[in-house]
């Protein structure tokens, strides 16, 4: 279904063509990039970032049948021109989904917000692919994905304001250049676990609270 392009990728250096070593002689749990649950033997992780995989990512791919999947990392492959299938929403056990620079285009389907166990969502694309979030999907996303710890959507056209109420476990919030607008909710500055925050290059307005501990001087400096 896919081919392997062994040529160095712009984003990965030399790809590690893990899937080439997959063969039926050995159990799939020993394949490179595949991790299984110890007790049940079910595949729970597919870590295939930078594997040189190339081709169209179709909705009928058997990958969507692995409902036990908790972690799916397809970053740095080349699915150029493929849409993010609504069937991603069927992988209801997913906690990690990494579609970082993998060539997906079009609308991020609302079904992503069905992944209620999702803790990590990384999607970014090169500008030309024009990946975007459908209207109201951002709010839906933030309302449903209550377990989210990392949200990183670069160059994704969100074109929305940031809802006032959202998840509190966030450690990473990266939404630069995503055409966010409106008022920046003060709640952002009270996320106690936050380690990384980047909302640059948007059209957000509003005050930066003076109660960000110890940072008042730095604000002035940055200006």
């Amino acid at each position: 279904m896919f081919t392997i392009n062994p040529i160095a990728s712009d984003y990965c250096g030399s790809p590690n063509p893990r899937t080439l070593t997959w063969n039926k002689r050995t159990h799939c749990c020993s394949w490179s990039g595949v991790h299984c649950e110890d007790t049940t033997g079910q595949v729970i992780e597919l870590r295939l970032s930078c594997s040189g995989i190339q081709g169209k990512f179709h909705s009928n791919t058997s990958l969507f049948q692995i409902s036990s999947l908790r972690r799916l990392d397809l970053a740095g492959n080349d699915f150029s021109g493929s849409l993010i299938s609504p069937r991603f929403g069927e992988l209801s056990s997913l906690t990690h989904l990494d579609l970082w620079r993998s060539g997906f285009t079009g609308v991020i389907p609302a079904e992503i917000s069905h992944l209620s166990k999702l803790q990590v969502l990384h999607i970014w694309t090169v500008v030309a692919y024009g990946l975007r979030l459908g209207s109201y999907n951002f709010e839906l996303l933030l309302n449903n994905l209550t377990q989210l710890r990392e949200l990183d959507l670069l160059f994704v056209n969100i074109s929305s304001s940031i809802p006032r109420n959202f998840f509190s476990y966030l450690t990473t919030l990266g939404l630069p250049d995503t055409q966010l607008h409106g008022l920046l909710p003060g709640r952002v500055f009270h996320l106690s676990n936050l380690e990384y925050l980047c909302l640059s290059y948007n059209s957000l307005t509003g005050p930066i609270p003076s109660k960000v501990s110890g940072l008042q001087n730095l604000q002035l400096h940055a200006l």
Partner: protein
Amino acid sequence: MENHIYLLFLLFLFQYYFLSISAASSNETDQQALLAFKNLVTSSSHVLADNWTKNTSFCSWFSVTCSPKRQRVVALELPNMQLQGTISSSLANLSFLSVLNPENNSFHDGIPFGLGHFPLLRVIDVRNNQLQGSIPTSLFQHQRVPKISLGFNKLGGEIWTGPWYVPELRALNLGNNSLTGIIPSSVGNATKLINFSLAGNRIRGNLPKEIGNLSQLAFLSLYDNQLTGSISTSLFNISSLVTVSLALNRLSGSLLLNEGNIVSNLEFLSVSNNQISGCIPSNICQLRELQVLSLSLNNITGEIPRNIGCLSNLEEFYIGDTPIKETIPTSIGNIFTLQYVDCTRNSLEGPIPPELGKLSNLRITVNFNNLSGTVPAATDLHLPNLKLLLLGENQLEGETLLFITNASKIEAVGLENNFLKGTIPTNLGNLRELRGLFLTSNQLMNEPREHELQFFNSLADCRMLRYLEVGYNPLNGILPNSIGNLSSTTEAVNLADAHISGFIPASTGNISGLITLVFKNNNLMGNIPSEIGKLKQLQGLSLSNNKLQRHISEAVCHLSNLVKLFLQVNELSGEIPECIGNLSMLLDLSLGSNKFSSKIPLSLWKMSGLLYFDVSRNSIEGEVTPDIGELKAILELNLSSNNLSGVIPSRLGELLHLQYLDLSNNSFSGQIPFSFSNLISIEYWDLSLYDLSGTIPKSLEKLSYLKSINVSYNVLDGEIPSGGVFANSTLQSFVGNKGLCGMHILEVLPCPITKSGQQSKSKKLVLKIVIPVVTSSFIIFLLVSIWIMKRKKIAKSKDVEKVPEINTYPLISYHEIQ
């Protein structure tokens, strides 16, 4: 640390948030930044100069990508454009930049420091430029950057040892720079790293065990550094690893794998050229996907694991230059994928396992070991698929080499320096792939009762042949005309010391690709055939120690690529051809111990590239002309034992590289030229046995490399200088002269100090001579005074001025001393 990061990235937020809403940066800033970048770049194609103009929007400029809505530069991709110049620090104003890729150009100076603070930066690829300076430390704290590729530059300074926090990093390539410092343990934080290269730097310290945390790592390239310590077993627990290259470091300890099952996808493991000790672990079988295993140049002991056959995908196995012992395991024969085995300079013993014969395409090198036993008989070893068999420098025996003739795919056979007997097979023509036959230094012979060397006939069918090395065997025979049928691919023929007699066949000139031809130390006679002149590629011709006669054919002068010409110890006579000076590539010319007469051709002195010239022990006549000063490169010059006469030209002093000079046993006259003190490289010097007169120039003391000088049997006089080489010279160097003197050589009497011009002015001499004179004068004065006072006859005395001269020893020649 977390708090620190928190603060840092809040700063990020504020900086760009406010920039954004205050509109302090705009697309105008981007245009200015790009134009400033352009101003510092040149290229032969003028691509930027022509294309990046204000007439068009910068978003349409070549290599520039903008974000569609905001019209801000997000990518600047300029690979392979032959650009030169510096990367302008104005790029730090491209605050939306996500991809910066100017790889494969000639940018120099530093990487702009601001880049690491770009929140959108995802790729920085400046590989293969000439960038200097240090790496912006902010890159090691960029939380989102997946690719940092800075390899093949001239970056220096220490690797940042502060906490690395690059959780999204997939590729970190810093190889082939001049980086120093250590690999910090915080490298283990880069848990998504797939490619990691620091090869070709000067990184010190241990391989941190935290590398074992990099669970996605596939390519680890740290070769050619100064790493020490042992290789952590945790490294091999990373199941995604494909390539590990740790060669050329100072790693020590044993190579160990964890007990218990590990899942390994490792295909390439090289730890060669380190100080790894201990045995090869038998559980190396865990690395079941291994294709290349390189352990050479270490202190690995013990034996090659008997179960090495478990590595069923192994293609290349290098264990050379380690003190590994015992026999070659027979299980190697089960690795059907094996293509190359290198066991050079081990301490392997015992026979060659016949199981090797099962392997297709095998190339095996077991040179310099202690293999013994009989070279496998044809019945044991089926070699139809063997490609390379190098077993030189062992203790192999055997009466027949017939087994080779089965190996129809073989490319090279090396059995030199063993104890092989018997004959060289005459049916080698089956070996259509044969490129090298190395059989030197055995006891091999020609077919019995045959006069001509028969094996040459069949070798004519080996059309790939390049090296034929069969010298140092008691072949006994004459060269057949069929030698001329050897393939034109043949580059080297070595038949030195092989009991060959008869003539050099004229057909030798047909081996048109020959680069070296060695027939030295045989009993060849007759003349050097003029057909040799057809060997236009020839760089080395060694015909020394034979009985070759008559003059050197002028055809030799056609060998325009000749670098070395050795014709010494023959019976060659007549003139050295004038045209020999045409051999402009010649570096080494040895014509000694022949019967050359007449003069040295003038053209020879014009050979400004010649390094070694020996024409000693001939009957050369005439004078050495001042043109000898043209031998600008000469290192060793031996004109001894001829009939050369006249003065030694002072231009010899221009040969500044000369290390060895032997002019002895000729009929030179006149003086040792003062210019000789310019021969600053000279180490050995023989001027003995001719008629030089005058003194030894004191300035020769300056020649600091001179280890030996011989001026014996001349008519020199005066003082032997005391410094430099003279300080350690012995009597032997000065015997047989008219009147040499000097204090520093025990057997030689001192020179009279009254003789002006021969007095040493050194302090040593003052102490040795003047002080005793003064002291003794004083004592004599005292004694005389006492004596006078005792006699009370004379009130005043002027005897002090009449103290006897103690320095009037007559000069005695060394002939008389003896």
